[in-house]
C-alpha cells in the first residue's frame, strides 16, 4: 500500500521513477514559467534517454532536454522561449529531422488529454478539420451516429509520468492552487490527470490550511519532491521571475556551438549544487 500520508522523496529517487523511453509530460505557461527544471537537470544527470516529451507550451525544459540529447520525440502545440524567441535546440532538431515531432494545437492537445483523463480512447473533435497535421499523424475520423457528421477522432494521450513545479503542496501530495493565477494554470492539472504517475516538485512542502484551495488531492499524486527554487532559471508566478540574465547571456549563447553547450551542461547541470 502506498503511504498516502508521506510521499516525500529526494530529487534523485523521484527522477529514477522515469524510465528511458518514457512518455513524460510537463505543465507551465508562459514558456519561461513553472517548469520543474531541478527535476529535468536530475534526469540529465542520471543520463535518461529517448524521452517522449509532452506539453502545451513547451519551453526551457524541452530545450534543455533536447540539448542534452535526451529526447526521442516532442508532442506540443508550441515550443519556444517566449520573449526570448525560438527554442534553439527544437529548431535544430526540427531542421535536422533528428527527433520526431508530433504536432498538436492547443485544442487538439486538450481534447487528447481530456480523453485520457476520462479513460476514453478518443475524443470527437471539430477544430483541426482538413489540417495536414491530422492527415500526417494518421488521425482518423468518426461518424456521429445521430447527425451523420464526420468528426475528427483525436486519440487519447496517456502518459507514463507528469512532473509539475508548484509553490506549495503537503507531504501527502495535496497541491495548492497558485497564489497568483497565471494563464492556463489549470493545464497543469489536466496533463497530470492523463498520467499513470504524477511527481510534484514544490517550493515548500507544508500543510494547506484551506481545503477549498487544494487543486489536486493526494490520491492524484504519487511523489512529492522538495525543490526550492526548482524552476530556475525559469520563474514561478508569485515566487520569482525568470533569470533573464542567465538565459540571455549564458544559456542562449551556449546553444550556438555544440561544444559550448557541453560546457553549459557540465557547469550548470552536472556541476550545479542543488539538493538531490
Amino acid at each position, binding site marked *: 500500500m502506498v503511504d498516502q500520508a508521506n510521499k516525500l522523496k529526494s530529487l534523485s529517487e523521484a527522477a529514477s521513477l522515469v524510465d528511458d523511453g518514457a512518455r513524460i509530460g510537463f505543465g507551465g505557461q*508562459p514558456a519561461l514559467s513553472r517548469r520543474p527544471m531541478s527535476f529535468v537537470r536530475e534526469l540529465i544527470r542520471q543520463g535518461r534517454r529517448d524521452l517522449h516529451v509532452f506539453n*502545451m507550451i*513547451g519551453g526551457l525544459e524541452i530545450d534543455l532536454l533536447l540539448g542534452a540529447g535526451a529526447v526521442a520525440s516532442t508532442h*506540443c*502545440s*508550441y*515550443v*519556444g522561449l*517566449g*520573449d526570448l524567441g*525560438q*527554442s534553439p535546440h*527544437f*529548431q535544430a532538431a*526540427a*531542421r*535536422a*529531422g533528428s527527433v520526431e515531432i508530433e*504536432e*498538436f*494545437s*492547443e*485544442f*487538439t492537445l*486538450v481534447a487528447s488529454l481530456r480523453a485520457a483523463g476520462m479513460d476514453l480512447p478518443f475524443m470527437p473533435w*471539430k*477544430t*483541426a*478539420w*482538413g*489540417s*495536414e*497535421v491530422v492527415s*500526417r499523424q494518421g488521425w482518423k475520423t468518426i461518424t456521429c451516429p445521430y*447527425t451523420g*457528421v*464526420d*468528426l475528427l477522432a483525436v486519440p487519447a494521450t496517456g502518459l507514463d509520468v507528469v512532473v509539475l513545479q508548484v509553490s506549495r503542496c503537503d507531504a501527502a501530495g495535496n497541491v495548492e492552487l497558485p497564489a*497568483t*493565477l*497565471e*494563464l*492556463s*494554470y*489549470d*493545464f497543469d492539472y*489536466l496533463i497530470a490527470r492523463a498520467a499513470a504517475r504524477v511527481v510534484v516538485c514544490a517550493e515548500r512542502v507544508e500543510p494547506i490550511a484551506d481545503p477549498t484551495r487544494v487543486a489536486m488531492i493526494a490520491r492524484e499524486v504519487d511523489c512529492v519532491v522538495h525543490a526550492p527554487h526548482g524552476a530556475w532559471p525559469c520563474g514561478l*508566478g508569485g515566487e520569482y521571475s525568470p533569470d533573464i540574465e542567465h538565459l540571455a547571456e549564458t544559456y542562449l549563447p551556449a546553444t550556438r556551438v555544440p561544444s559550448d553547450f557541453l560546457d553549459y551542461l557540465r557547469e550548470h547541470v552536472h556541476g550545479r549544487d542543488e539538493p538531490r
Partner: protein
Amino acid sequence: MSTVGVDVLMAVAMAREVRDGDFVSHGSAVPLAGAALMTAKALHAPHVDFFYDGWVTPGETDLAALALDPGLARRSAIAFLSQAQIMELELRGGCDLQFLRPAQIDPLGNVNVSSIGPPEHPSRRFHGIAVADAMTIVRRICLYVTEHTPRVFVERLDFLTGVGHAEEDRWRERLGVTGTGPQLVVTPLALLDFAAPGSRMRLRALMPGASVEQVREATGFELALAPDVAEIDIPSREEIAALEAADPLATRQLEFRELRAGAQARLAAHAARS
C-alpha cells in the same frame, strides 16, 4: 502620408475590423493585434471584450504597461478565465474575432504556421500550431502579415496547418462549426479579401503609397482585383491619437522584423527607468 509608419497603418486598418460588442480572442505576444484592439476599444468599439493572458478586459489598456507589470492586468480585470473556460467558450462560438499571423497564406486563405520547406527537413520551423485551428470556430478571422512577399503569399503551402476557405466552405456547414474563416488579410501593402467563400483572394484596397503592380509583384499567386480598388482611408487624427495612447512605446513594432530591435531597446530603456 510618408510620415505614417507601416505599423500605424496596419494597426489602424486592423482596428477597423473590430466591431463594437465583439468578444475578441487575444493571444500572447502579438502586440500589433493588441494595439489594434485597444485602438478600436478607445474609438468605435467601446463595448468590446477580450482576454489578455486569461484576464477579461483589463481596464488598463496601455500595452507597454501591461507587458512590463504582469500584475496590472490582474488588478484591473473583470474576471479571470482558465484555459478550459477559454477553450470551451471558443468551441461554443463565444469568440467573435481573432487576429492571426501566419507564415504562409494561399489563395483560399489556408495558412501555414508550422514550417518552411519540406516538413521532414524544414529550412525554417516555427513554434507550433498553437491556436491556428481556431479558424474553424472563432466567428471571424482577420489574418495579417508584417512582410508582403511571394514567400508569404504562395500558391501552395509548404504545410497546411489551418484551413481557410477550402471546398467553398461546404465543410464548415457540414461539420456545423461557428467560424466563417478569414475575412480579410492586412499587409504592409494592402488589404486582401475574398469575394465569396471558395473564390481566390483578391486585392481589396491599397495602403497609402502602394500600387496595384507592386502588390501583385509581392504576391506569389495571381491576385484578382476587387471593384474600385483604392487606397484605404488614411488614419485619422483620432485613430492615431488613440493608437498612441494605447501603445505609447510602439510595442506593436515588435511584430516587424526591421523594427523589432528598436522596439526592444525602447522597452528595455523604459523598464530600466520605471
